[in-house]
Structure formats: C-alpha cells, structure tokens
C-alpha cells in the first residue's frame, strides 16, 4: 500500500473513533442532567400564561377538592403500610406492586397494577385493574368504577385503605 493510503487510513480511523465519541455525547446531551434550570422570572411568566389560558375546559379539580365534605387524604388502616397517609390531589392513585405505583404494595396478595382510585365529577372512584385477588369496597367486590364514600374501607390484598376528610 502506498504511504498516502496508509496515512489516510490512520487518520480516517481516528476520525471514526471521535465520531463515536461525539455521537454518544450528542445522544446524552439532552438528558445529561435531566433538568432544565429556569430563571425565576420565567416561572412566573409560565404561571401568567396558565392564568390567561387555563387550557380550555373546566379548571382542574382543585375547586371541587376544596368543597366541604370532599375527602382530602387517603389513609392506610391495615397491612404493612399501616399508618401511611397520602394527600389526595386531582390525579388518580395507582395501587399495586409495580415500582411505578403511587402506593407501592409489598404484598404477595396484590397484583402489579392492582387498582386505581381517581377523582371524577367531584367524587372519588375506585376501579379494579384486573387484579388476581380483586378489590373490595366495604363488603362488595369492585367491578367497574365505583364511587368511594368517605370512611369506607377499600381492601387490596392485605392492605386496607380509606378516604378521609
């Protein structure tokens, strides 16, 4: 091989090596920290936008949550997590063994994605997500979405939870 070809291969290989480095950095650049740092002003700017355009539809359930009589938290009354309290927001709560659940149950009698408790039309509903052992509201097994009265025990595996004001 001529000297020129050898040199070109030598330098070309270094280019290839750096291409790998730069491509890898390009891929990871986006989530190198996983966060964006916002100036404080931009936060208020965003809130002003949110005020101006509350996304069309009805304002999120905060109004309904503030209503007297609506449950404000979820309390575990039996099972390994006894005593745990979750504050109810306006998002649904996923119960199950999956690490992604809101309330992670370390309980062989519960399913990975066991049940969901969610707010709708000013009330809270419980819904079984096809669990093996079922979800019980009071003494009845939960079939479809069922309204949850305050203080009624919901049984999921060995865990009993209830909504409290």
């Amino acid at each position, binding site marked *: 091989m001529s000297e020129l070809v050898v040199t070109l291969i030598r330098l070309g*290989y270094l280019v290839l090596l750096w291409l790998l480095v730069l491509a890898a950095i390009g891929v*990871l650049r986006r989530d190198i920290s996983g966060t*964006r740092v916002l100036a404080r002003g931009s936060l208020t700017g965003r809130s002003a936008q949110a005020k101006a355009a509350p996304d069309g539809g009805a304002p999120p359930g905060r109004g309904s949550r503030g209503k007297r009589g609506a449950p404000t938290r979820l309390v575990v009354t039996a099972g390994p997590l006894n005593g745990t309290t979750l504050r109810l927001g306006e*998002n649904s709560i996923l119960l199950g063994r999956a690490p992604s659940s809101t309330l992670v149950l370390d309980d062989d009698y519960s399913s990975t994605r066991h049940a969901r408790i969610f707010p709708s039309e000013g009330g809270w509903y419980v819904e079984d997500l096809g669990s093996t052992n079922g979800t019980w509201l009071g003494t009845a097994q939960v079939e479809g979405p069922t309204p949850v009265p305050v203080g009624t025990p919901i049984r999921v595996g060995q865990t009993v939870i209830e909504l409290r004001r």
Partner: protein
Amino acid sequence: MATVAPTRPRAGRNSELGLLAIALAVGVAAYAIVGLNLDGAIPGDLVRHVGILIGLTVVLHLVMRWRAPNADPVMLPVVAGLNGLGLAMIFRIDQPLAARGLTSGFAERQLMWTILGIVLAIGVLVLLRDHRTLRRYPFLAMVAGLLLLCLPMVPFIGQTINGARLWINVAGFSFQPAEVAKILLAIFFAGYFVNRRDALTLAGNKLLGLNLPRFADLAPIVVVWLVSVGVLVLERDLGTSLLFFGLFVAMLYVATEKVSWIIIGLLLVGIGVVFAYSTFDYVAARFDVWLNALDSEIYNRDPGGSGQLVRGLFGLAAGGLMGTGLGLGHPDLVPYANSDFIVASLGEELGLTGLVAILMLYLVLAQRGLRAAIGVRDGFGKLLASGFAFVIAFQVFVVVGGVTRLIPLTGLTMPFMAAGGSSLIANWIIIAILLRISDAARRPAPAGAGSVVGNETALIALGDLAPEPPSASTPTTPPARQSAFGWDNDDPEPDTTSHSQTELIGHREEHPTNAVGHESDRAQDTGDIRGDVEVPRAGLDGPGGTERGTSEGVVGPARGTSTAPEQDSAEDGFGDDDNPTEVVKR
C-alpha cells in the same frame, strides 16, 4: 433564584442502534486495518471474528428492546466499541508474539470470554427484572464476596503470578475471583448503607470546619480498611486492595454526602500506603520504579525493574499526537502489552488523539452510571449504580495513571479492553446491572400521570403561581436544596420520569406529628427562600398529632396556606426509603 424543571428523557432505542453501528464499525475497522497494515490483506477470519461480536451485541440490543426498553442508550454502544477495539488490539499484539514464538492466541481466548460476557449480560437483563431483587441478600453477598476474595489463598487452586496471589486455576482456566467479588461487595455495601445511612450521616464533633462523624460510626470503615490491608498483605496486590477500599469510601460518600468521610478515607489510605511501603519490598519496589523510572540501575533491575513502564512510555512517545497507525508500531516490545499495558499499546498506535477518544468513552460510561444513580428512585439503586460507575472510573484512573507514571503501577485491568477473562465477564455483568438500573431510572410515568401537585400547591400557597392544568408535562419544583445524588428527602423529584400524583404526608403511626410538624418548619423555609411572601402559619401549630384523626380544622388551613412542604415530608427518615414496603412517591 432559579427553579429546576425536569425534562423527559427519550427511550432512545433507535439512537442506541445508530450508535451501536458506529461502535461496531470502530471494532471492525480496527481489525481490518491491523490485517491490512501487517499482512497487506484483510484478515481471513474477519467475518467470523467480528460477526460474533456484531451478532451478540445486536442480540443484546434486541433483548434490551424487550426487557429494558427505557435503559440508557449510550452504555451498550460505548462498551461494544471499547470491547471491539480491545479485541483488535489484542489480535494485533498476537501477531508479533507468535512470530517470535512466544505465547499467543490471546485474541481467540478474549473472543471466547467476550461471548461469555455478553451472554451473561443478556442473562442478567432477562432474569433480573428489578435491581431491588439484589437487595434481598446483602449478607449472602458479603459472605460470597469475601469467600471469593479469599479463594486464591486456598492451596492447590490458588495461583501466584508475578508475585500477586490473585488467581485461581481450575481445570486449566485461570480466573481472578476478585473481579466477581467486587460486584458482590458493591451489592453488599449498597444494601448496608441504605439501612445505615441515617446513623452515618449524624454529625459528631466539628474539627477545622469539618463535620466529623461520630466515633462509633467509624467501626465499619476501619473494618473494611483492615480487610483491604489483609488483601494487600496476603494477596500482595495493591490495586485490588485500593479498589475495594475506594469503592467503600465512594459509596459511603454517596450515601451520606459528607466530605469528611472522603478525608477520613484518604487518611486511612495514606496510613496503609506508608505501612505497606515500609513493610513490603514489592510495594517499595513499585514506588522506586514510579519515582526513579529512568535510572539505569532501576531500569535494568530484574525482577521488579522499570523496564516495562519505561518501554511503555517510549511507546507512547513514539505514537505522538496521531499515532503510528494500527499495526505499524512496536507495542509488543512491552511485557504484557495486551493486558496491563494495553493503554500504552493503544497510545502508541492511535496516538494521543485516539487515546483521549478512548478515555472520553470511559468518561461517558461512568457519567451514564452516575446519571442512572441520580435518576433512580430507590436508595439501593442509587448506591449500587454509583458504586459500579466508580469502579469503572477508578480502574481506568489507576491503570492509565500507572502507565503514564502519574501514580505507582498497580495490578488493575482496563475495563473491557485488557486481555483477561474474569475482568471482561465481571464488567459485562456490571453493565447489565447498570442498564437495569437506568431502565428503572428512565421509565416514564404511568399513564394518566400529571404534574406534581404538591409543588404547584406550594407555589399557589405562596401566591406565586396559578393552578396549572393537571396535564402539564413539565412540572415545576420549588427551589430546594438539591442533593447531588437526588436523595428523596432532599430533592423531591429529581428525575423526570415520574410525577407524584398525590403526596405522601406521613408514614407511620409512630411519628404522628411528622406530617404537620414538618409542614410548619418547611413552610417557613420555603417562605424564607421566596422571601417575599409572609406565610400564615397560625393554623399549623394546632393539634398537630393526628394525621389519622383528620379534623378539617388542621388540614384545611394547612392546605390553604402552606402546603409547600408536603413533598418533603418524607424527610422524617430515610428509613422510609429503606423499608422493603417502601412508599414510592409517584
């Protein structure tokens, strides 16, 4: 004052495939160029040789699509590139060794170990569905790790090579059990620290502006130090000894975020090194070689001369900025050019430019490990991932530092590149576990997830922010003291992948006052930070004890005025994170 808003990472499986193509091209091209420059033709077994590597890494990629779809997209390509380049370099050094009639055939063996390593990595990814499974048996891991560490001491199977008694020889295969032991001990350390984190963080006396830990908490670090010194004395290997102690100190720092532990660790290392230098001839010889490498007396000393080190430096010098080109240098003149001194070989033939690129790849790899540690939610995963990232980075530092005469030469291997099966297999398993942890760290929120309610309410309570639609994809977090490693109690939602839908306000009946008690404290904190809003706290000092006895009077004002601290009330103990029945805020 700035706020931190998480961004949602992409799964990146397609980016991974693209990167993998470049990485495999690096390995294949290296192999082909070696053949072209040495024999004037592309090596005959190129297809078989690189086909195995390509096939297995693509299978691993497909397994990740199946079993770890959110895992980090950069790790596998980086590792595949390093492994491929290492294979090509070992093959290249085999040629002159064979021509001189020395032991060769390292490339074939390394290829076999690569196959085994990738297959094991696939097995780990398929069988280990959740890294927290590893946490179940910390003491089993400890016992197994220590047994493996002691295995070379056993007569008949233990083997001494170049003075270090690190190998076992079973049925003709020699193996370094310490490489596997480092995985097991990292698992043990992570499981141990996650339970002991509270106590180890407690401050003792203050000395020179430094918060020293309590005297009683020094016991574990002293025990590990003694074990490391034991390794040094019995197995006569400085590198392994340093690696274990360094791993312990690094994970201790990650667990506690206290710099004083690092300083204590460095002091203990200093004591150990002085002790070893004055007691053991072989350590003293290493120091001589390091400090006076170019003395002709030390250069020619046999054994324990500096010839190997200095010839490695000559090789690096011959490589210069752009290198001699693969196959055109003389890296084989250095003893162990394909294992301990593969850095010098690569530096000679790829030059500083190529060597820096390789170091960049290691940097990216360690960074991805630490990133997974920051992103993952459970304390065990954080500690394990940062421990593994540290192990990789530390080995690279010790090896490259040794070869370039920054520090005394010790017996560690360059991960994924140096010839040696045990190290290759152990590192592939480490990568598989890191991929598993990064998959958990980057997993997107479950369907229907919205924003962090508590954070919004915090801002609303402070009159700063109107309610956002619950579907907001980038929730804001209030300014909080950010923990470098994203420990939950300091940093409510460091990672982007999941957003709590409801907030944890208290955990156990044993701490009934936590919920409200913390709220009042934290409300003041937040108020101070924001500065401009007076937080009414009257309602909070009320009958705080009854998280279960739910009177509207307590919760109402708390919610109306300063619900800010909700997301932080997990700070009543890291124990919550440790408990197997942990409450994960999602």
